[in-house]
C-alpha cells in the first residue's frame, strides 16, 4: 500500500504539492499569528523613556494585541478552511483511481486507511515545512504592525515558542487529517463500477454533509445579520468578520447549486464562439471542481468587501454622529486658549463653546472588567476644559445622569471615553483628584455623559477650576454660532484674518473625524487581512492548479478530437472566468448581507441608515480575482497540455 502512495505521489505531484503548500503556509501563518499575538500582549517596554512615551507605546501595544486577537482566529479559520477544502478536493480528484483499487479487491477500510495514512504523512510534512516558514511569516507580520505604527520600529517579537510551534503544527496536520477523513469516508463508498465508466461517473456533488453545512451556516449568517448590532468598533468588526466567515462557509458549501446558472450565463455570452457550448458543458460537468476553486475565493471576497464595508460604515457613522451632536456653524481649531478667547469679540459671532485640551491627570476610583472593588486609576492623558453652559448649548449629547449646568467651580463631568475604555464610570457626587501643573485638587462629579461611537474625551472640567495660565496655553477646538443675519463665510474670513485659527464648517469638521477613524481602520484592515488575504489567494491558485492538473487526459482527448492547444487553453480560461464570477457574486452577496445588517443598526444608532460601498476595494477585488484565476488557468492549462495528446489519451487512469 505504501508503494502505491509513493508512486501516486510521484505521478500526481501537483495534487500533493498543492495540499502541501496549503498545509505548510497555513501552519506558518497560524504560528506567526500566535507568536506576534503573545509578543504584543506582553511587550517589553524599554527603560529610559518619558512617561508619555511609555504610555503611547503601551497604548500602541494594546491596540496591536486587540487587532492581533482578532487576526489570530481569522487566520486559524482560513487555515482550517483552505487546508480542509484542499485536502478533501484532492481526495475527490482521485475517485477513479480509488474505484480501480476497489475493483482489484481493496476493501472499504483499506481505501480509507490509504487516504488517512497519506494525509498523516502529508500533514506531518506540511507541519515540518511550515515551522521554519513561520519564522519568516512572524517577521513579515511584525513589519506590517511596525509599518502601520502599532509597534515601535525595531520591535523584536518572539520567533520561536515551542507551544506556538506545536499548536500550529498540530492544527495543520489535524485539519489535513480531518479534511481527508471525511473525503476518505466518502471514498470508501466509491463503487468499483466507477472505474469502468469511461468518463468517471460524476459523483454526487451535493452530499448530505454539504447540504447540512451549507444550510446550518446560512441560518447562522441570517442570525448574525439580523442580530448583529454592535455599539463599539471592535464589536462591529468582529461581527462583520464572523459574518464574512460563516456566510462564506455557507455559500461555498452551496455553490455547486449556482454553478449550472453561471454555466448557462457563460454559454449565452459565448454563444457565437465554437468554444461557448463546450465551455458551458465543461463548467456544468465540473461542478465539484469549480465549487472547490471558488470556495477560497468566496471567502476572500466576502472578507475583503465585508470588512472594508464595515470599517467604512464605522468611520462614516462617527462623522454622522459628531455632526448630529454638534450645534453651531463653524469649528475653529486654535493653537492656544488665548486665541480662542478672542473669538467672542469677532463681529457676527453669537456664541462660542471652547474645548481646551489641558495636560492634567485625573485619578478616580473605577472598576475595570468586572473586578470586584473600585480601585484608584489615573487617567493621565489630558482633560478638556469647558464652560459648562456654553458646552451644553453647543453639544446635544445629554448626560445619562447629573447636569452639565452644574459644571462650574470645583466640578467635573465624566466624558464618553471612560466607559468606551472599559471602565465603570464614577457616579454623580463622587470625587476625583485632578493634578494640573503640579497642583492637586479634589473635584466633584456633576454629570456623566453616555458613550459615543467616537471615543471622545475622558473628563470635562470647568474652566474656573484650572489655572488661567494653563488655559491660555492649551490648544483647542471652538464651536462657533454665527449671529442671525450674519454671513457664515464672512465670519469665518474674519476669524482667519484675526489669526485665531483654522475654520471649517461643522460638516467638514465631522468628516475630518471620520477620516481620522478611516486612517486607523485602514491600518486594522492591513493587519487583519494582509497575510491572511495572500494566503486565501494562494488557496485559490492552489485549487486551480489541482483542478487543472487532473484534466490532462480530458484536455488530451479534446485535442485529439480536433481542438488546438490554444483553444484548449482558452476553454480553461473561460472556465476560470466562470469560477471568478461565482466567487465574486457569492462573496459579494455575503458582504452585501453584512452591509444590510449594518445599515439597520446605524439607522438605530445615528438616525440615518449608513451604507458604504468600498468602490476602490471592490474594483481592485474584481480585477484581482479575474487576473489571478485567469493567470493561473493559462499557466496550468499550458502545463497540462505540454505532452503529446496521443500518449496521454492512451494511458487512461
Amino acid at each position, binding site marked *: 500500500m505504501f508503494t502505491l502512495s509513493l508512486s501516486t505521489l510521484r505521478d500526481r505531484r501537483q495534487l500533493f504539492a498543492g495540499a502541501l503548500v496549503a498545509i505548510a503556509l497555513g501552519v506558518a501563518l497560524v504560528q506567526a499569528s500566535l507568536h506576534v499575538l503573545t509578543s504584543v500582549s506582553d511587550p517589553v517596554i524599554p527603560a529610559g523613556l518619558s512617561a508619555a512615551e511609555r504610555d503611547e507605546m503601551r497604548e500602541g501595544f494594546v491596540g496591536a494585541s486587540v487587532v492581533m486577537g482578532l487576526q489570530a482566529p481569522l487566520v486559524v479559520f482560513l487555515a482550517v478552511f483552505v487546508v480542509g477544502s484542499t485536502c478533501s478536493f484532492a481526495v475527490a480528484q482521485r475517485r477513479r483511481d480509488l474505484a480501480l483499487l476497489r*475493483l*482489484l479487491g481493496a476493501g472499504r477500510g483499506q481505501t480509507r486507511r490509504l487516504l488517512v495514512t497519506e494525509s498523516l504523512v502529508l500533514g506531518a510534512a506540511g507541519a515540518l515545512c511550515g515551522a521554519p516558514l513561520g519564522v519568516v511569516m512572524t517577521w513579515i507580520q511584525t513589519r506590517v504592525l511596525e509599518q502601520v505604527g502599532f509597534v515601535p520600529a525595531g520591535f523584536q517579537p518572539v520567533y520561536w515558542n515551542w507551544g506556538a510551534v506545536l499548536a500550529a503544527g498540530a492544527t495543520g496536520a489535524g485539519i489535513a487529517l480531518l479534511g481527508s477523513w471525511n473525503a476518505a469516508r466518502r471514498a470508501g463508498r466509491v463503487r468499483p463500477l466507477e472505474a469502468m465508466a469511461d468518463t468517471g461517473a460524476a459523483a454526487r456533488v451535493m452530499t448530505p454533509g454539504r447540504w447540512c453545512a451549507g444550510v446550518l451556516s446560512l441560518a447562522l449568517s441570517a442570525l448574525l445579520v439580523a442580530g448583529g448590532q454592535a455599539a463599539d468598533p471592535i464589536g462591529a468588526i468582529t461581527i462583520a468578520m464572523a459574518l464574512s466567515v460563516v456566510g462564506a462557509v455557507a455559500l461555498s458549501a452551496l455553490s455547486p447549486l449556482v454553478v449550472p446558472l453561471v454555466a448557462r450565463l457563460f454559454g449565452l455570452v459565448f454563444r457565437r464562439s465554437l468554444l461557448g457550448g463546450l465551455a458551458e458543458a465543461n463548467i456544468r460537468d465540473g461542478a465539484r471542481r469549480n465549487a472547490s476553486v471558488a470556495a477560497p475565493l468566496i471567502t476572500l471576497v466576502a472578507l475583503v468587501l465585508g470588512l472594508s464595508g464595515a470599517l467604512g460604515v464605522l468611520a462614516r457613522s462617527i462623522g454622522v454622529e459628531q455632526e448630529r451632536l454638534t450645534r453651531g456653524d463653524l469649528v475653529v481649531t486654535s493653537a492656544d486658549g488665548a486665541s480662542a478667547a478672542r473669538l467672542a469679540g469677532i463681529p457676527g459671532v453669537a456664541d462660542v463653546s471652547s474645548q481646551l485640551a489641558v495636560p492634567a491627570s485625573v485619578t478616580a476610583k473605577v472598576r475595570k472588567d468586572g473586578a470586584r472593588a473600585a480601585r484608584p486609576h489615573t487617567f493621565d492623558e489630558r482633560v478638556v476644559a469647558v464652560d459648562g453652559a456654553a458646552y451644553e448649548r453647543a453639544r446635544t449629547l445629554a448626560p445619562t445622569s447629573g447636569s452639565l449646568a452644574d459644571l462650574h467651580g470645583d466640578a467635573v463631568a465624566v466624558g464618553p471615553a471612560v466607559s468606551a475604555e472599559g471602565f465603570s464610570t464614577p457616579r454623580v457626587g463622587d470625587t476625583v483628584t485632578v493634578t494640573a501643573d503640579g497642583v492637586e485638587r479634589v473635584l466633584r462629579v456633576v454629570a456623566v455623559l453616555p458613550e459615543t461611537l467616537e471615543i471622545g474625551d475622558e473628563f470635562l472640567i470647568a474652566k474656573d477650576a484650572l489655572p488661567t495660565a494653563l488655559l491660555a496655553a492649551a490648544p483647542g477646538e471652538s464651536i462657533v454660532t454665527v449671529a442671525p443675519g450674519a454671513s457664515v463665510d464672512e465670519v469665518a474670513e474674519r476669524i482667519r484674518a484675526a489669526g485665531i485659527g483654522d475654520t471649517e464648517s461643522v460638516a467638514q469638521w465631522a468628516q475630518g473625524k471620520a477620516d481620522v477613524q478611516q486612517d486607523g481602520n485602514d491600518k486594522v484592515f492591513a493587519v487583519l487581512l494582509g497575510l491572511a488575504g495572500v494566503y486565501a489567494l494562494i488557496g485559490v491558485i492552489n485549487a486551480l492548479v489541482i483542478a487543472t492538473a487532473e484534466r490532462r487526459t480530458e484536455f488530451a482527448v479534446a485535442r485529439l478530437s480536433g481542438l488546438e492547444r490554444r483553444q484548449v487553453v482558452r476553454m480553461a480560461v473561460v472556465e476560470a472566468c466562470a469560477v471568478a464570477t461565482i466567487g465574486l457574486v457569492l462573496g459579494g452577496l455575503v458582504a452585501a448581507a453584512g452591509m444590510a445588517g449594518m445599515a439597520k443598526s446605524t439607522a438605530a444608532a445615528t438616525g440615518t441608515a449608513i451604507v458604504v460601498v468600498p468602490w476602490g476595494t471592490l474594483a481592485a477585488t474584481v480585477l484581482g480575482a479575474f487576473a489571478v484565476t485567469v493567470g493561473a488557468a493559462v499557466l496550468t492549462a499550458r502545463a497540462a497540455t505540454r505532452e503529446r495528446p496521443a500518449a496521454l489519451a492512451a494511458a487512461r487512469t
Partner: protein
Amino acid sequence: MGQNLLDRAEGSQAARAGDVALEMRQVVRSYGTGEARVRALDGVDLTLDAGSWVAVMGPSGSGKSTLLQCAAGLDGVDAGQVLLFGEDLAGADDRRLTRLRRDTVGFVFQNFNLVASLTAEQNVALPLRLAGRRVGGAEVRRALDGVGLGDRGRHRPRELSGGQQQRVAIARAMVAKPKVLFADEPTGALDSTSARVVLSLLRRMVDGAGQTIAMVTHDPIAAAAADAVVFLADGRVVDRMERPSARRVAERLASLEV
C-alpha cells in the same frame, strides 16, 4: 483428511468440470426514471459452466456491459437472481463482495485500467497485495513472463503499447487465479496481432488452469476463440451458439443488427 485438503487447494484454483460457475435467472436492470427509463437487461437467463469460455455478443447498446457488471457483482440488479458458484450476489454486503473480488473474480477491460503511476510489476502484484498476501518477485515475474513481458516489468503503462498494456492486465488477472474472469472487449483497442496473442493467453487460462471466462466482444474472430457465444438483443438473450466459427458468428450478428 488429505483428500479434503487437496479438494480445497484445487477449489481455489478452479472448480471441477460440470460445476456451474455463473447462473443468471430472469435478471432485470434498468437505468433512469420516467420517460428516460431504459431496460438494459430485460429478463436475462444465462448459465456458465465452470472451466468454459463464453463470448457475449450483440449490437451496441444491447446490454452486454451491463450483463457483465451484474454478473460480477459490480452492479446490483432490479429483479432476478445472480448466482456465482451458488452464492446469491443480490444479498451480498460490501465485505462479501470485496472478498469475492479478491478470491473469485477478475477483470480485464478494453481500456486496460492499469494504475498509471505503478510499474508493470507493481500493477500485477497489486491485487495480491490488496488481498494482504505476501507477493514474491518471482511469482510476479513468472506471470509477466507468461504473457511475454518478462523484460518490461519496470515499465510504466504509458511506456507500453496497447497490446502490451492489455497483456499486463491479463497477467494481473492471472496472478490472482480468479475462478471467473470477466473481460469487456479485451481486444477492442488492439491490432489483430496483439489481439491474437491476448486470445491465446485467455485460452491458456481456460485449458491450463481451468478458469472460467465471460468475455464481451464485437469481433467475430475473438468470439470464435471461445467455447460458446451468447447473443444479446434489447437486453435479452436471443441465441446461443456452441463451438462457434467466425463466419457463423458474423452471420448471426448481422441478422441481429438489422
